[in-house]
């Protein structure tokens, strides 16, 4: 029921929305919860396990009951707390976990079976047979246990991530947070003030307290206005700081557009912030705790503080006749606020015998509510005193068991809270988070005056730590009542008294857990599910701990708390992963010939972040093998062009450049002549192969190293390590030039003829022999030419500045096609190199040594190099090790597959009989059958042996013969032609 003349809602701005298909009206400023209560909708959800009817319990992010699904289709957003969701025109909300409807829920039969469904039910029931665990039991449990469901469709909504830096992060904009931010901001430091609510002020917007002679909400608005005008302040509303991380890093979720109907895929829905703060003031307030009594979960039973919030902030009376049940003075103000708003208060039932009335209402002292009635909405309550029991007709019960400081985030870095007997609650332990100060209600200071003062004190501490001068701030006048409370966790009696509303955990469940020896608090939590799911026990944890302490005969501090972990309240994975969806997860790197390649219809394949052509389909070719075979042949018989720019290129210069190369490569580079290229093998310090490639010497002090595409980053980091950490005395500098040079292989018997058609000065075998390099000019462009070969053919690689890459590629291709050649892709490149026994990272996969790939003689005896000593270990030179060999099919099955393992021909394919494995295969058009490279025990000694090749995954088996890994032109005559 809407109250006249109350609340911070805009009555000139009516908003129409729907809940379960029924259209309702509210006002701008309403939450879904306040608007539903204004429309007297009490039943909003069904509980998780027993499908009991539930209503709104709280007025904040701690809400355990009122979970709804907002929107529909791909944009449906499940488990949204109605207490946080602001209404907007056209908002569609639906209840969850009820079938066929919220009013009649078939699964409510669980509630009748409740005596059998207590703590540990699943563990005891779904035990045997084991085969049922995943196929039968899990689907049953998942269907029965209900929160909202995701749509299963990709959501086009936009999420962002952002970073912010500040001197001071203030978490929470209640009286303490506002004063802390104001004090620090006036002193000139950079402040971020974040609050999860849509308007700042915290409880000042929910209470009738006066600050500095004005309404608390008006005072808060005036402070916010002052802060908003300051350049050194960033105000972040609708922003929940979700976690505290190392070195002052905080995660925060900003709900940017959940309160609007901007869902066009362009407007940002949520932003996940990472805030780096030198200092932090946590002023996150306190959460009111319920009291456990029989059937305390009926719609209409709410937290007393929430009732005040609905009355004062939203102008909504949650009931027509309200009763208050509490163990503290604070809750009595609920009755006064209601009466002032014209709502009938039936009684205030206080468990304390000596409680005093603070106003003109019926007070029943020394009394406890012991039962309630009303199936889908509260109808009456029964209370008990020393002299007997009586019932009261009421449609709303405001309950309060006192307040729990919000210690959560102070425990995110292994901190444990401290028990304070005087307020019967946990408070943060000082120093739990480095450079964080805790102030106000979240530190156990509950009066407004104390909060305001604590905010100033916290800011003074921060300013002192930052070395900034404190500018005097006047602490405003405010109420300073003493917090009077006597603990009451649960009312004794039969029947179910609910603790954790979200997980349907009752007092009985906690006692049962203790009885069955789940006495350790973390065990109790897992056994009962107390404190799980979206609210993480924000309402119920302390009560549950108190009851566990009681059941186990220990004190509450000895019982301890479960572990608080981020996030404080739910964060969508989409927000945390913002920017990393789709291509954002793996940005694309394109070669300069990309456009020309795609124009020719070449399918692109990924090589790390790079995209390279698989093959270039010619007219009439219907599958990739036809293209691949043709491309191999054209390289062997004419000339082929291939973009090899993705290989890492590192420009190395300086007097000690040669010394660096000698040290990182196993073989010698200081002896390399200027104008020559050499193949090099690089080891890790543990003696295993890191990478290989060619390095060209352009002058005495200038080299260009190439790395494999895959290891370019690793090699760069390795060179940085060697020069900075091992040999800082060397005078050498290097830089990656991978993206600065476009480089193309020109391979085949007609390679030189082709080049001589495009080079400004022709070359011949004398001035450009195998492994020569130097400057050339191609079509007027200064470039470099390297006579190197990864195909086994007479071949070159020509490099030009990347901006000429597209043009030079097209030029080379035109020439090649005119000579009976053409472009070749990765498939053909792979076959060509397998025919020659050249290795790639398929072979040097991290577990092989130079010895294993037959290159142990490349480790120079004349010098030290990375990996030299460790490569000499006995076990790494064992003749029986798996060593690189070639393989060809000799049985009926002609197909070879990479990843297959070898076994003796007449023995079973078992791990004990394993002889090695295949690393690379390709169909060789040159030989007319498959060729493979792989590793086999004994290596060269096995040449001529026949083995069983078994690919257990693909179900392929073949007989192979072990042969020398270089199938084609073992003497290398073609390359020198």
């Amino acid at each position: 029921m809407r109250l006249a003349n109350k609340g911070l809602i805009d009555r000139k701005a009516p908003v129409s929305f729907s809940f379960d298909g029924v259209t309702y009206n509210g006002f701008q400023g309403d939450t879904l919860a306040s608007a539903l209560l204004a429309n007297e909708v009490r039943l909003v959800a069904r509980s998780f396990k027993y499908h009991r009817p539930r209503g709104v319990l709280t007025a904040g992010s701690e809400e355990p009951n009122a979970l709804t699904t907002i929107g529909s289709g791909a944009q449906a957003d499940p488990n949204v707390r109605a207490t946080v969701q602001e209404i907007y025109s056209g908002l569609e909300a639906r209840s969850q976990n009820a079938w066929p409807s919220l009013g009649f829920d078939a699964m409510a039969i669980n509630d009748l079976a409740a005596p059998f469904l207590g703590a540990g039910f699943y563990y005891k029931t779904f035990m045997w047979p084991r085969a049922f665990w995943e196929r039968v039991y899990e689907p049953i449990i998942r269907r029965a246990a209900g929160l909202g469901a995701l749509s299963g469709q990709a959501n086009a909504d936009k999420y962002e991530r952002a970073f912010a830096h500040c001197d001071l992060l203030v978490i929470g904009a209640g009286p303490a947070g506002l004063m802390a931010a104001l004090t620090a901001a006036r002193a000139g430091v950079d402040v971020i003030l974040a609050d999860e609510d849509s308007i700042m002020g915290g409880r000042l917007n929910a209470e009738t307290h006066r600050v500095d002679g004005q309404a608390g909400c008006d005072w808060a608005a005036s402070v916010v206005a002052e802060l908003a005008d300051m350049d050194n302040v960033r105000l972040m509303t609708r922003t929940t700081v979700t976690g505290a991380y190392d070195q002052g890093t905080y995660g925060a979720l900003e709900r940017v557009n959940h309160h609007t109907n901007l869902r066009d895929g362009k407007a940002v829905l949520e932003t996940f912030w990472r805030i780096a703060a030198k200092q932090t003031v946590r002023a996150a307030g306190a959460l009111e705790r319920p009291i456990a009594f029989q059937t305390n979960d009926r719609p209409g039973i709410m937290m007393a503080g929430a009732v005040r919030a609905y009355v004062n902030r939203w102008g909504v009376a949650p009931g027509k006749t309200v009763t208050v049940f509490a163990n503290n003075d604070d809750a009595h103000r609920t009755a006064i606020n209601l009466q002032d708003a014209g709502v009938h208060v039936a009684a205030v039932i206080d468990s304390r015998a000596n409680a005093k009335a603070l106003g003109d209402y019926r007070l029943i002292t020394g009394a406890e509510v012991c039962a309630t009635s009303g199936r889908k909405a509260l109808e009456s309550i029964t209370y008990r005193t020393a002299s007997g029991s009586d019932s009261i007709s009421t449609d709303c019960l405001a309950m309060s068991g006192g307040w729990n400081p919000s210690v959560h985030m102070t425990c995110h870095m292994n901190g444990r809270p401290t028990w304070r007997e005087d307020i019967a609650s946990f408070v943060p332990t000082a120093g739990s988070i480095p450079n964080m100060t805790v102030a106000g209600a979240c530190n156990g200071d509950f009066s407004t005056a104390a909060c305001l003062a604590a905010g100033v004190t916290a800011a003074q501490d921060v300013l002192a730590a930052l070395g900034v001068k404190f500018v005097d701030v006047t602490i405003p006048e405010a109420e300073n009542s003493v917090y009077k409370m006597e603990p009451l966790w649960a009312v004794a009696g039969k029947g179910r008294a609910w603790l954790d509303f979200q997980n349907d955990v009752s007092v009985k469940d906690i006692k049962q857990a203790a009885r069955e020896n789940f006495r350790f608090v973390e065990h109790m939590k897992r056994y009962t599910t107390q404190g799980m799911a979206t609210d993480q026990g924000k309402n119920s944890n302390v009560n549950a701990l108190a009851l566990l302490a009681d059941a186990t005969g220990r004190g509450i501090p000895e019982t301890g708390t479960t572990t608080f972990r981020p996030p404080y309240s739910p964060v969508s994975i989409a927000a945390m992963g913002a920017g990393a969806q789709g291509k954002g997860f793996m940005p694309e790197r394109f070669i300069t010939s990309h456009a020309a390649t795609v124009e020719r219809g070449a399918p692109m394949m990924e090589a790390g972040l790079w995209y390279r052509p698989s093959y270039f389909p010619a007219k009439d070719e219907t599958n990739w093998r036809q293209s691949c075979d043709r491309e191999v042949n054209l390289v062997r018989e004419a000339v082929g062009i291939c973009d090899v720019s993705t290989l890492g290129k590192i420009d190395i210069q300086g007097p000690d450049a040669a010394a660096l190369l000698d040290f990182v490569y196993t073989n010698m580079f200081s002896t390399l002549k200027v104008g020559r290229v050499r193949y090099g093998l690089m080891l890790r310090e543990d003696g295993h192969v890191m990478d290989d490639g060619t390095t060209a010497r352009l002058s005495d002090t200038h080299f260009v190293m190439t790395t494999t595409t895959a290891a370019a980053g690793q090699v760069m980091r390795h060179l940085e390590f060697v020069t900075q950490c091992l040999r800082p005395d060397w005078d050498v500098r290097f830089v990656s030039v991978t993206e600065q040079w476009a480089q193309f292989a020109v391979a085949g018997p007609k390679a030189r003829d082709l080049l001589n058609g495009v080079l400004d000065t022709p070359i011949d075998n004398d001035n450009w022999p195998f492994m020569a390099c130097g400057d050339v000019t191609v079509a007027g462009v200064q470039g470099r030419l390297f006579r190197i070969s990864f195909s086994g053919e007479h071949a070159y690689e020509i490099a030009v500045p990347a901006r000429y890459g597209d043009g030079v590629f097209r030029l080379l291709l035109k020439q090649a096609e005119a000579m009976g050649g053409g472009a070749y892709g990765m498939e053909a490149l792979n076959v060509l190199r397998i025919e020659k026994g050249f290795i790639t990272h398929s072979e040097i996969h991290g577990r092989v040594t130079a010895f294993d790939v037959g290159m142990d003689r490349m480790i120079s005896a004349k010098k030290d190099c990375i990996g030299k000593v460790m490569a000499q270990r006995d076990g790494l030179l064992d003749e029986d090790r798996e060593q690189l060999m070639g393989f060809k099919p000799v049985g009926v099955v002609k197909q070879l597959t990479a990843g297959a393992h070898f076994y003796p021909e007449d023995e079973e394919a078992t791990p004990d009989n394993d002889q090695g494995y295949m690393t690379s295969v390709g169909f060789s058009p040159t030989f007319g059958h498959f060729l493979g490279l792989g590793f086999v025990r004994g290596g060269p000694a096995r040449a001529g042996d026949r083995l069983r090749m078994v690919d257990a995954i693909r179900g392929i088996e073949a007989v192979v013969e072990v042969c020398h890994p270089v199938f084609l032109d073992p003497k290398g005559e073609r390359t020198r032609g």
Partner: protein
Amino acid sequence: MRLPCPICGERDIREFYYQGAAVALDRPDLEASVEAWQDYVYLRDNQPGPLREMWHHDSGCSAWIVVTRNTATHEVLGAALATDVKRTKA
């Protein structure tokens, strides 16, 4: 987590690559014993508490830095350029 790069200042951990204990700086001579090499390449104490470790600012200035970090609390106690640390030792 944030690390103080001596060149760039305090930066987010996502900019860094982690290598392990700063033992890596103390590469043995070619003639050193097999045991010394085993220690260098493989053996680490792995005690909780302050540890000198190697980080590479590979999304920043490319400097290798020696960070002293308490592995139990993640408190960063200091950072220096590996180059400077190595030169001081030599």
